[in-house]
């Protein structure tokens, strides 16, 4: 009699580890895949608004279509977690953040609650450190309600644009990892993506534009950067992507307008102590490809080429110096990470000056020497022939 009972108990013991009993299981069919998250902050009421752009399967698997249903849901709460949890009251499925590539922070939230947001994101295990953080003009909620122009999923569209940033350089997106690395640094600032809605003429629907940058310093949003300034940041601070960067440059030389495609910029930073205090020189070497010109130029002559190269160099120097002026005087924020360079290579000087960095930086002269080399001029000597 005891024997069957013992076997039954043993069997029951096995049942406890049976597959259905595991609490960790998340079936894909029960998942709402969050692909973009928006965070807004209402300063007056002290409320966070958490918006999730989710992907749901269209209907059932039997339809031979991979169309997905996009769904934007948002909820309010006293803290980010509270808002995020309140969001679950609206979702019939388990929200999954593991494939979230973008966090769009509303302008107001970036100005007033950025610390809280970054803190939440780095703590949460669901959120990937490789997801990009963008700042939207206006509310993130409104931004996420836009449709993508390509009819692709908005998340895919944004990801594609982020990946293609190196082809024009006028937009920068930082990952959560980079931001949390630099966040704690009181000396330097950083620049990440700027997202805005474009109600352009001739378009029926508003589209999203990822262009320019949003500048942060001491953990707070300090202002927007235009495309040129962003390009400067890209050229001088995104070390990992220097080799990939390409950008177009319009140069005037001998009354002709020439467009050059610049690439592979190599840079060397030099730090020196001058009478007026610390100063920096940046030597840049860029290669250029001649892409178009509006009238024939005698480019077979070395003088013309040299002149063109000099003009391009000057153009770049002016562009960068203009941006640097804005960074130093208007923002008073070291967006290029010059402080990092000084700390790494001139640690003695740095330890002396780091306490006064906030006063020294805006006044520090930074001299740019851009040396452009035209490597490819193309086949056409001139359209009329010679």
């Amino acid at each position, binding site marked *: 009699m005891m024997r069957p009972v013992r076997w039954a108990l043993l069997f029951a013991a096995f049942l406890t580890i049976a597959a259905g*009993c595991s609490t960790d*299981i998340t*079936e894909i*069919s029960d998942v709402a*895949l969050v*692909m973009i998250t928006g965070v807004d902050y209402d300063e007056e009421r002290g409320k966070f608004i958490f918006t999730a752009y989710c992907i749901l399967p269209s209907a059932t698997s039997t339809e031979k279509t991979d169309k997905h249903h996009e769904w934007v849901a948002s909820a309010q709460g006293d803290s980010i977690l509270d808002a995020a949890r309140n969001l679950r009251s609206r979702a019939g499925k388990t929200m999954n953040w593991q494939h979230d590539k973008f966090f769009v922070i509303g302008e107001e939230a970036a100005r007033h609650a950025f610390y809280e947001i970054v803190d939440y994101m780095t703590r949460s295990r669901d959120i990937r450190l490789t997801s990009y953080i963008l700042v939207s003009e206006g509310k993130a909620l409104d931004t996420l309600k836009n449709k993508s122009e390509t009819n692709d999923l908005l998340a895919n569209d944004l990801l594609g644009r982020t990946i293609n940033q190196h082809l024009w350089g006028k937009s920068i997106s930082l990952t959560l990892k980079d931001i949390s690395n630099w966040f704690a640094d009181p000396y330097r600032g950083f620049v990440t993506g700027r997202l805005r809605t474009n109600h352009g003429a001739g378009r029926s629907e508003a589209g999203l534009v990822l262009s320019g940058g949003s500048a942060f310093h001491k953990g707070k949003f300090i202002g927007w950067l235009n495309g040129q300034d962003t390009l400067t940041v890209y050229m001088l601070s995104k070390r990992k992507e220097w080799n990939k960067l390409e950008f177009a440059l319009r140069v005037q030389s001998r009354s002709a307008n020439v467009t050059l495609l610049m690439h592979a910029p190599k840079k060397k930073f030099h730090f020196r102590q001058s009478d007026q205090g610390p100063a920096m020189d940046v030597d840049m070497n860029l290669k250029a490809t001649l892409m178009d010109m509006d009238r024939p130029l005698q480019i077979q002559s070395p003088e013309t080429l040299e002149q063109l190269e000099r003009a391009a160099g000057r153009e770049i120097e002016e562009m960068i110096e203009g941006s640097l002026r804005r960074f130093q005087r208007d923002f008073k924020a070291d967006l290029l990470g010059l402080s990092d360079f000084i700390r790494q290579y001139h640690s003695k000087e740095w330890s002396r000056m780091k306490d006064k960095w906030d006063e020294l930086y805006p006044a520090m002269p930074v001299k740019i020497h851009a040396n452009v080399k035209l490597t490819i001029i193309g086949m056409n000597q001139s359209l009329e022939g010679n």
Partner: protein
Amino acid sequence: MKQDPIGGSVANALNDLTRRFADNDLFVIRDLDIEEGRPTASFAYLRTIVDEKNLNRELVGVLSDGHKYEEGRKDAFYIEFMNRLGSAKQLRHMEEVEQFISAAGVVFFIEGRFMAYGIVMPGYETRAIEEPKIEVNVRGPREGFTEDIQKNLSMVYRRLKTSELKSVPFQIGRQSQTTVMVLYLKNRVDEPVLAEVLKRLRDVQMNVLIDSAQLEEWIQDSKYSPFAQILNTERPDRIASALNHGKTAILIDGSPNALIAPSLFTDFLHPSEDLYERFYFANFLRMLRLITLIISLFGPSLYIALTTFHLEMIPTPLMLAFLSSKAGIPFPTFIEALIMEIAFEILREASLRLPRVLGQSVSIVGALIIGETAVDAGVVSRPMVIVVAMTGIASFTIPQFSTAISLRLLRFPLMFTTAVTGVFGLSLGMFVIFLHLCSLKSFGKPYVPLFDGREWRKVIENYVLLPIQHRNIQSSGSNRRDDETG
């Protein structure tokens, strides 16, 4: 065992035999000479298993060739007759006689002799030598073993023309008295392994031995392991190559599969064809088979782990594809996988058991109709069909059927552990299987060749096929380098 010696009296011997073969319709005694009503020269055999036609023809032939059957010259007549039939073996005990007759022999008794003469004259039909059905090669020899051990032995001996090739016979099975032959190359064989093989064969206790699989079960090292530890092959070229590697081969009468001992896990993954292809391609195939081994063992489990526990490990575009194909599927992934795996096993078994022509249509019906309809009806998801089909096909690339089925079987417990704890359970299962494999031995040799700090070259050669000049024939009997193919 008590043995009855042959007494010298034909009549007594025949009485004894008649008693032993009582109630046997096939048993025949024919007398050549009778004196005083008692037979003085006779022969006995079992009809139908002996070539009776030939026997009669030779008897008539001896008589008509002018050999006088007369007093005083009878012995010469008997010897002439027996010589015409074949080589005679001297039998001294009635038990031997009984066995001999059972094994398609004709036994002669002559008055006054304290022995009988046995000649093997099988008259039954055996299958002709055909191309191997299971171990199919694109290139290489095309003959396979048959059920007749003599034919099989001839095929091996033809490939190794040396006196070093030794054969040790065994009679196994109290009733079946099946001939089992252990082959080895004296100068290459691993002596301790050979001794172990012979010892184990001597210890076999069974009534009827029909196929090598039964013997394999008796002599293998670990009886409860899911993995086959003795390689079986139906290719004589593979046996020749194994003998050259210092292994022993066991041939069993009545079985077209010979056994090779000791066998390593890698042997089960490499078909003999590897030796007949260029080594680049052979190594590519070996690598491919290692991959398919992993797929066929872990495929469904990995899918379960990824789609129910570790969604973050799936790339986003793939996740989007999964998302749409998994929507509306009524079963949890684990149950879905279980259903599909079992359905696949049913299909495989059905197509195997049915006649070949019908079998193909079953697999087509199963794969196309059931698979497609199940997906259309929303019972299973498309990725699951892909995973199960991929796993099934991967398991077919494992050349040894016995290994392929053990992998297929182990897939199920792995699916269970994975469904409970995700990749953790999968790696736990993987770990247990790996430990088990490492603990296995085949006739005292480690089953999985792993680096132990010594003889790394030999270990490598178990996995990688080196160009022929660099191949080192493994043999503990002789360590000389050799430039042979196998």
